[in-house]
């Protein structure tokens, strides 16, 4: 299985959360060609999910697959680091 499995934990409709959702959607569209599962979890609606995963910071992006499981915390604003964290750096076109 080669599909990416991602979970993004956000807090309601606050600015940082909304922005993170947009950024992540863009990255997935550009980089993953539909080869991914993305689940967006609002901790206000699903506090139990936050508990299960031990979420502290918001936003938190968890790459469940491929292994190793990796956590990215923060607003995903630093694109190069997000790509590195997701293991997508090599796919970045040379500018």
């Amino acid at each position, binding site marked *: 299985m080669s599909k990416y499995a991602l979970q993004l934990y956000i807090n309601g409709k606050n600015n940082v959360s909304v922005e993170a959702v947009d950024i992540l959607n863009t990255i997935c569209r550009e980089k993953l060609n539909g080869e991914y599962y993305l689940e967006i979890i609002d901790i206000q609606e699903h506090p139990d999910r936050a508990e299960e995963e031990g979420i502290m*910071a918001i936003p938190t992006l968890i790459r469940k697959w491929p292994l190793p499981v990796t956590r990215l915390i923060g607003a995903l604003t630093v694109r190069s680091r997000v790509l590195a964290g997701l293991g997508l750096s090599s796919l970045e076109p040379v500018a």
Partner: protein
Amino acid sequence: MSIRKLVTGITAFDHISAGGLPYGRTTLISGSSGCGKTLFGAQFLAMGIQLFGQAGVFVTFEEQVEDIRINLRTLNWDIDAWERDGKWVFVDASQKDDDTLTVGDYDLSGFQVRLERAITKCQAKRVVLDSIGSVFSQFQELNSIRHELFKVTLALGRLDTTSIITTERTEEYGKVSRLGVEEFLTDNVIILRNVLSEEKRRRTIEILKFRGSSHEKGENLFTIHPEQAIVIIPLSAMDLKYRSSGVRVTSGVAKLDEMCGGGFYRDSIILVSGSIGAGKTLLVANFIDGIREKDERCLLLAFEESREQLFRNATGWGQDFTKLEDDGYLKVVCLYPEVASLEDHLLNIQEIVREFKPDRIAIDSLSALSRTSTDKAFREFIIALTSFLKHQEITGMFTVTTTLLSGGTSDTEGNISPLTDTIILLRYVEMSGEMHRSLSVLKMRGSKHDSSIRGFTIDDKGINIGEPFTGVSGILTGIPARG
């Protein structure tokens, strides 16, 4: 005016804090590693459940939940049942072993949502966050984390919980906390210390500040008891307001009663001082024998002699300790002073007293106990012990050993004599080339007493107090002279 407090249920803490922790607020507990802060937090929750039926939330930033459970089970706290019944809820905020990368701004609302969910779910009244220092190592941005934690403390107050935040400090006397930012979270700060002093561990608790509320100042000793967890020995908080009894009890020696103006007061502490072999243990044996007059019970704590030795000596003076013990009038406990710290000895003695409910207690000898600690700690021990005994209206006889055979005082004596009500001196006197034994009542609080120095002899019936020495002076200095 004092602010509202939440009674914690931790032994003596409510006493030194004048009623417990500030209600609806957060208190910071700071201490070096191994000082007992996690235990204090856990005990705060456990007592809430056991004594008041108040649920609690335990947030761990550092230790694994399962490790904490294991530790708590050793204290006979039924953590599993409490968790099952929703009385105790863990929030695991410890660091995950996944790789973590920071990619932009964040807040800790994830944590806050989980904490609020846990509190609402079990309707918690008490919350513990252990320990906050780890949050700063998990998340690097000091200022924003401080702000986030401040929001957490606001939420804790809003949800009507009384909470404890623990934090690390690197030295016993110095900055309140490692990073120096934690104490800005709250107005209430408690310090736990664990100091090595003259080869002995000395644990103390100090309430540094409780904004807008009174509390005891300074350090109070505490010990970690295998079943009761943290037990504070509140020396500074001891009040001297015990009832003073006018009832007299016999010393077991008619003549000595006479010298004391009719016997010892029931709630008094009698100090018997003398060198080795001066007859201290004999007076103790008589004191024990005195229980027969009113069918009282006596507890004998022996720190010097073995049971066999004691019983044999008593037989030599015509007393049957074995029978007294069989009949339930006497309980003899022999201990090596070195087996425990003074704090533990104190707890142990209190436990035995509560169980056996004696009318009298004899300790032979205090000097043996004083060997194991510093002067200060020993004095504190005696204050705590005498106060405890007086509250229970128990008559106490303590012996101390002087180092010189004739004359002289002991360090122990100098330390504690102000705390006792009656002092009896047993001294050897050399006169005309012979050793005589002498006995005198040096002090008898609240009563007239015979101030003469009397000779006494010991035979197979016990002690025979004779007439006062006349025409001799300087007996107590050990160098008597015919005057």
